């Protein structure tokens, strides 16, 4: 099997996990995305599903911990990006860059 496919939203979530290094869990990721994307409608469930899928694909790993009172004493699941995740992001970025560079300048400004 080739490398797993990474959807647009999944890519964004994966990047956010990388950004929030160490403090990435559902609420923070959703808040971060919302803030960065001009309040695009970000649902918590969507973020979670993306996270679980990323975990199944091996791009992130998770652990439980850090209960707070706002959560009614429930634990959080923290996500960290894996080496595979980083490499995949880098490869995608490179492909994009190459594509951008390949655009003839006059037609796109």
């Amino acid at each position, binding site marked *: 099997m080739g490398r797993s496919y990474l959807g647009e939203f999944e890519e964004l979530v994966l990047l956010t996990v990388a950004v929030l290094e160490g403090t990435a869990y559902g609420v923070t990721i959703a808040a971060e995305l919302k803030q960065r994307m001009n309040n695009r409608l970000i649902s918590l469930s969507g973020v979670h599903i993306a996270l679980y899928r990323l975990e199944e694909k091996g791009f992130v790993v998770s652990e439980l911990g850090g209960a707070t009172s706002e*959560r009614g004493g429930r634990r*959080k699941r923290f996500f960290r990006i894996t080496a595979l995740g980083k490499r995949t992001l880098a490869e995608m970025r490179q492909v994009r860059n190459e594509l951008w560079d390949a655009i003839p300048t006059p037609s796109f400004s």
Partner: protein
Amino acid sequence: MEQQPSPPRWPDRFLGWLLPSELYEELLGDLHEQFAFQAEEFGVQKARWMYFFEVIRFCRPYFLRRRFSADTKYSTSYTYSPTMIRNYFKIAFRNLLKYKGYSFINIFGLATGMAVAMLIGLWVWDELSYNKYHKNYDRIAKVMQRGVFNGEFGAGAHMPIPLGNELQTMYAADFKHVVMSSWTYEHILAYGDKKFTKQGNYLSPNAPDMLSLNMLKGTRTGLKDPSSILLSESVATALFGDNDPMGKIVKIDNRLNVKVTGVYEDLPYNTEFRDMTFIAPWDLYVSTEGWVKRAKDNAEWNNNSWQILAQIAPNSDFETINEKIKGIKIKHVPEIAVFKNEVFLQPMSQWHLYTGWDKTGKSEGRIQYVWLFGIIGVFVLLLACINFMNLSTARSEKRAKEVGIRKAVGSVRSQLISQFFSESLLVVACAFVVSLVLVLLLFPIFNEVADKKLTLLWANPIFWLLGIGFSILTGLIAGSYPSLYLSSFQPVKVLKGTFRAGRFASIPRKVLVVIQFTVSVTLIVGTTIVLRQIQHAKNRPIGYDRNGLITVTMNTPELHQNYNTLRDALIKSGGAVEMSTSSAPATNLNSQNNGFDWEGKDPNFKEQFGTIAVTHDFGKTVGWQFVQGRDFSRNFSTDSSGMVLNETAARYMGLKNPVGKIVKWNGKPFQVVGVVKDMMMGSPFEPVYQTVFMMDYGWANVINIKLNPALSAGESLKKIETVFQKFNPGSPFDYKFSDQEYERKFAAETRIGQLAGIFAALAIFISCLGLFGLASFVAEQRTKEIGIRKVLGATVPNLWGLLSKDFVVLVIISCLISTPIAWYFLNGWLHKYEYRTEISWWIFALAAVGALVITLLTVSFQAIKAALMNPVKSLKSE
């Protein structure tokens, strides 16, 4: 600490149900945390709404899928994975092939049951769709009248002519069509030298429109011209072959020339008018039959001799019209008010299934048989299902190990249940295919017996939907017990070998056997009694001699004119020993009248007599027997207005010595010359009707001929035919044997008897298949026991008794249960008949003995086989 605003509770509970348990904590935590932020940012109220919508967004397939695949205790593969289903079918096939005997019994028994159910289903379907060929089915009705005569309800479709006119003119808004009709009757159709006797009818010109006839040639307006005729396709082909029939001149009954103005598609077999093979205009009938013309011209309201059909207007309904028209006849004939006469409409949907009324006016008819056979069909199918369940549960111990291993390896109960269901569905699918083949093979016999033209409705989606739906249902019902029962085994016990079906495990099986045999024995008793009732009626004295008696319909004017010359010629030809004419054949009392008066009659007595017009020679032709007086004779000139009574009539009139008395009919005096023994002219299941035989040469419809007993029937008929061809060249020589006509009176009962017999035989067959399977199973299970018993000295009869005893007890119980049931139903059935056989105890005894013998034969085969086995072999094996 300050009290924090909390999110609403109930969405959390919903999430608790929705989310996979391992994710519940973290997801709910995240939701609550986000709620806390939002409450701070937007206010509690708005945050609650946002929380609510956030929860709604959790309804996503991802969570559901995770929840349902992961929530089981042990991780399993997806329940409906193709690999597992393939495996189920593989195991099922191997099981079928390994136990060929059982599989055969299972599949074949079920297929027989399904075939019976399918045949009955098709039969019921056909009965219910009777007459639906006509597009205006919902709006067509027969105009009828009903009343109460001497305390008994009666209804009939014989109507007077002026009523049709009245309906058409006074109630024009309620009726779209009013169609006058004579009766479908045999007529001669001739074209060139081709002559056929065909059944046809005279109808008003709007009839083709009302009946929505499918015109192949010409139009539905073809009857407007009074000398026209519409032919059915088959008659057109018979008369004209490939030539175009349109515009050709056809002769009806050798006297009416009519022009063919249309050809319609033959009416299908399951319609009321299936026998009507041509239609001639009503006006032609009126103008050519003197008595009809008189009835019309004089508006004879009391001459009830015709039919009136009607199609009601689109904005009307039967009840409203019934309410309007019920008094219509009393208005014109006030004296019938004492009968509570009412005119009413009988909708087409009831013509076939509700043909009669009992004495209180409750409608009855074939609908009872539709119910009866429907119930039998359900029962036979039930028997087959019971077999299937019985055999499967009986074999469950054999498969207990398999269940144990499957469970140990990780099957959960739901998987085992679906495995056994798929297995039973496979068997049912096989059985369905086999039953389709069986039905196709049985169709010719079934159609013959049931007088139907049934076919499989290959193109009908409802048929397939029902057939397949019903197979799946059967599979589920039949598979439910084994699958639920087998999957409940505990693997530890099964594999350790301590699994024992408890003492009561065989109880349900025994109950099922008892149910099966109860149904079978009831059917045996029912069939016997139906057949005995028919035999009882057949053995009844009929009062005349029907051997070698034939009747010929008088359908051309030539036959009416030459009574004596025809009679002489027939007797001289040697083919006949006697000939006479009469208004009806001896097998059919078709005319009943009132208007009689005699000395000593109670003026309030509403009399009704069967009336037959005869000639001098009638008695000698049919061989009636006198108890008083003498036969008509040419030696007495007064006999030309003579009358003969039957015994019932003499009793009915209250006359001790009727001979010599004068009886007036509509003022005309007749002298009674004799009393004959009751002649069975009507239904053989009813008492003989009071009948008078009057001398009248003018009122003749049939010729009765007694064949020469010295010659064979074929030779006599040949001689008679030459005479008829000379006297009646315009008509083919068609005759009916009276004994055959007599047999036809039993047709309905014989049909029920035969069908019930077939179903009983099949029910017994299915039960025996099941019993056979069960017995072989028991014998197999007790192999070791039998071996030890033999070693210790048991004899073969001992062992045979041991193995057969259980089943015999069950069958005896079923006999005891079925006796009152059968008695109850058959007593009800027999009470429909005035002349009926008794239900004697020996019928039940016979049925019980029969069932026992069949059981013993079935069981003995297995029992003796087991008893004869060498104990060395049976004890060695393990």
